[in-house]
């Protein structure tokens, strides 16, 4: 059992309140997933050749500034970094693969949890309000967020095993459910060159979509193929640069509800997570159908 939530603010005037509107949604899903919490927030897009990286380290004492200086020097690029608890947001204008290779070679203990132009991913073991407060998200502005509260069923309770999982540039996945063919799929994906940080089944789903997108599929095509190849129970919420997508397995085993007003679009495992949003009472509320892809924003 887990809780997943997503919120996209259509009304620009609400965007300065994204963090405070999203927190009660995540907090309400505490009982569905009290062991770990994670969010992806889309804010402050970078420009030009810059890429934004979400990095995590087990120690909050890690010297991120030293990393940024080393990267700028070795890769001959502009680099800046901001530490936020155990995570850091790095912005660098070197080619992404060069940065990834440099981090892997020089700092094998760092986890690169997401990248793109606007996405930032934060996840930790702990209750939603505690994790939210550690990363200072209550007062943040932005366009949209997705989040996850985890009750682990098949792999360890660790920061790395928390959601969201990145699936490509500005793409990440949160999952409620369990996959039954993840071990075999993981072997196939490893043969195709993907690397895994955990034994988590949801990481396999994310890696599967990463591979499909890398091979040229659109997110919609990747989700359509996931319906065929992922065996098990799932409600996915996939954050994209411009919104989010929702997909349920063919028998809709895991709960999900969608709601929309003129001001916002929200998804959640349960309505109670949406109930705190302004105007939720009068929102258009419906349950997403099985094996049907729902999207907000452009689905590239």
């Amino acid at each position, binding site marked *: 059992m887990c809780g997943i939530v997503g919120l996209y603010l259509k009304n620009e005037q609400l965007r300065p309140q994204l963090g405070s509107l999203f927190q009660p949604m995540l907090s309400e899903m505490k009982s569905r997933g009290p062991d770990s919490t994670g969010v992806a927030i889309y804010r402050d897009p970078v420009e030009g050749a810059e890429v934004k990286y979400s990095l995590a380290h087990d120690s909050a004492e890690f010297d991120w500034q030293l990393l940024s200086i080393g990267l700028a020097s070795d890769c001959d690029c502009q680099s800046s970094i901001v530490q936020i608890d155990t995570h850091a947001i790095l912005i660098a204008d070197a080619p992404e693969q060069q940065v990834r290779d440099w981090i892997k070679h020089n700092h094998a203990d760092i986890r690169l949890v997401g990248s793109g132009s606007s996405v930032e991913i934060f996840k930790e073991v702990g209750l939603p309000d505690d994790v939210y407060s550690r990363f200072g998200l209550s007062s943040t502005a932005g366009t949209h967020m997705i989040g996850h509260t985890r009750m682990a069923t098949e792999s360890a309770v660790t920061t790395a095993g928390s959601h969201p999982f990145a699936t490509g540039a500005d793409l990440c996945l949160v999952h409620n459910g369990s996959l039954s063919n993840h071990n075999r799929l993981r072997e196939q994906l490893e043969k195709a060159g993907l690397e895994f940080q955990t034994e988590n089944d949801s990481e396999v789903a994310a890696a599967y979509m990463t591979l499909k997108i890398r091979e040229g599929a659109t997110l919609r095509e990747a989700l359509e193929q996931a319906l065929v190849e992922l065996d098990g129970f799932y409600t996915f919420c996939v954050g994209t640069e411009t919104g989010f997508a929702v997909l349920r397995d063919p*028998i*809709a085993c895991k*709960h999900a509800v969608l709601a929309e007003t003129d001001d916002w679009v929200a998804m959640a495992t349960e*309505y109670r997570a949406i109930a*705190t949003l302004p105007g939720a009472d009068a929102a258009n509320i419906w*349950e997403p159908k099985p094996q049907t892809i729902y999207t907000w924003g452009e689905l590239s």
Partner: protein
Amino acid sequence: MTVLDLNEIGLRTVNATLQSGSPEIKSFTVTNPMGAHAIACGLQGSLDVTIDGHAGFYCAGMNKDATITVKGHAGVGLAENMMSGTVRVTGNASQAAGATAHGGLLIIEGDASSRCGISMKGVDIVVGGSVGHMSGFMAQAGNLIVCGDAGEALGDSIYEANIYVRGKVESLGSDCEEKLMDTEHLASLTELLNRSGINADANTFKRYGSARTLYNFHPDNAGLY
């Protein structure tokens, strides 16, 4: 009429008050339900309870004799294992509405999601809109009336219950087949539609039920196990 503000007094106090069986107060309105679980569960006696807003999972479960109205949508497991009384939802209901319910009348004015009436044991369920896949799964007794369409595998592994659908049936489940609609069924359907306050002509429905081929083990199937 007594108002119980769920946000203010909490779910346990709301349910304890409704379950206390006070002979003086028979009519309640629960405000600010905020999608909470298990609102108005386990009620007994001729209470009249209105939930003013959207309810969460397992609303009105195990109801006995009470009349409960949700002015909004209801989450998973609405009126689960209801024994008697009436539960009405003015909006939509999520999965497994009326699951295992033994009796009473459940009215969903909007749509119901998948597995509506799963393992129903005598309840009458009237859905003003459509139902999702696997509705009436393993239904044992009672009536499931769908004024709109039904999703895949309607009445899968059904024992004995009447399913009436006015719209399109995406597919019938294992051992579910269309049945003749005789005068007895028309009368029963008309009576249930009238009692539900849902305006639909019984003559426009088709009836589905059990082909009864799964009742006993068939030796020809031994090799399948």
